[in-house]
């Protein structure tokens, strides 16, 4: 596949294009991390994160690519790994006996939210994912999902978000009450 074909496929939401990229540049991209004191697993995580960033950029419709896809992903990998190395150095610089604060309440809440997302319908799941994760405009979401217009998409999105909110709140409240 050529770069233009990959971009076109990803902008349509075709995940197979991401699979293609992942296989094609796996060794090239993970080598960046491995050759810079990273492990194989860290390299894999960084590369997957970089691909997801690339996916989001393409899906949002705001990406103006002036280089090859491989060059762009390479730069994302490099930046992500630098951030990770910075984070590691910060952690190693902190006092080791300082207890790590764990927001158990928020962690528990996230688990409940994930459970509620699973319970949402396919349309609501797509609308919320397109809007919050992919950063798509309401007009693009309307077009992608075959809604009549942007307002319809906005209304749908409001209702789906409200439904998830209520769903999570109901479950969270119930567990809260049980404590």
């Amino acid at each position: 596949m050529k770069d233009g074909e990959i971009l076109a496929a990803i902008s349509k939401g075709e995940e197979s294009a991401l699979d293609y990229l992942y296989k094609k540049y796996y060794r090239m991209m993970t080598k960046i991390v491995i050759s810079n004191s990273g492990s194989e697993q860290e390299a894999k995580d960084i590369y997957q994160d970089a691909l997801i960033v690339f996916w989001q950029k393409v899906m949002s419709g705001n990406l103006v690519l002036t280089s090859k896809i491989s060059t762009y992903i390479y730069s994302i990998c490099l930046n992500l790994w630098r951030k990770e190395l910075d984070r590691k150095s910060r952690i190693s610089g902190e006092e080791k006996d300082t207890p790590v604060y764990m927001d158990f309440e928020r962690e528990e809440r996230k688990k409940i939210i994930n459970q509620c997302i699973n319970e949402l319908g396919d349309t609501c799941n797509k609308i919320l994912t397109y809007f919050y994760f992919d950063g798509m405009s309401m007009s693009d979401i309307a077009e992608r999902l075959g809604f009549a217009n942007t307002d319809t998409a906005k209304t749908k999105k409001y209702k789906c978000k409200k439904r998830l909110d209520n769903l999570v709140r109901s479950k969270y409240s119930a567990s809260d009450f049980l404590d």
Partner: protein
Amino acid sequence: MSPKINFFDQISPFLDGQLSGTEKVEFEKQLQNDPLLKGEFQFQQDVISSVKDYRIAQLKTRLNNIPIPAPNTMVSTNLAALKIAGSLLLISAIGTGGYLYYQNQVNTQSTVGTTSPNQIELSEEDLIGHTMIEELPTPPQIYAEDIENTEPQEQDEPLTVKREISTSSSTKTSQPQNIVREPRSVQPTIIEGFQDEESFPSEDELGLSFKTFDEKNNKEIAQVEVSNTIDGKHSFHYQHYNNKLFLYGDFNNIPYEILELNNAKGRKLYLFYQGEFYDIKSDQEEIAPLVEIKDRKLFNQLSPLIEN
């Protein structure tokens, strides 16, 4: 409408980036001052963050299920590829080297063979002559054999000349010591030198069949045997019959030459001695003195043959 729903309607526009600058500032002030609003804001943030994380987890699960060759396999694959590439490079290097070597050889040969552009236009005869210089090791021996087999011939070439130089210093019999063939009769001999050359066409292909020429003439031209006798009775005589020439006398130990002329009419012998030509008849069975040729016209015709 419950207060939480009001919070939802307040918070969602902010999180969705739908508020203007001033509305944004106003909301942030409320957020700092209202703990309930702040708590609800964090809740909304977690919901949106979870939606994102959910999708990331989906994509990562998909990517993790894509089979990637193990590093070792990749290394071995790379090594195999390197081996193949190396082999290809080696083959191409050998091929290139061979090609360049061949080119050099060709160029060298071309340089030798084409020192002058004019040589490209040389005729086949010129090429033959050129090769003869390199290929024919001992042409005089070939000439000697050929000339002894030479007889009058029915060729377009009317005249062939055989020349013998001898002295009477030998005791009884004097064989020809040096035989020179004139250029016209020599030419076919040159072709014989190509018999072993695979790169050249055969004699038949060239239309030059010297062997056939010789074989044909061997049947017609008998060999002339020359002998010299000193009997004390005859000082400057001869006999000539049955293709045998007997010379009598010591010739004062001065070399003489036998000149043989062949044409369609037959063969004629002359003896050249001390600047003069002597007639030798073909059927002279009796010993007879050598008679000097007085005909100046004939003398003038024979002289160039001797000089050559």
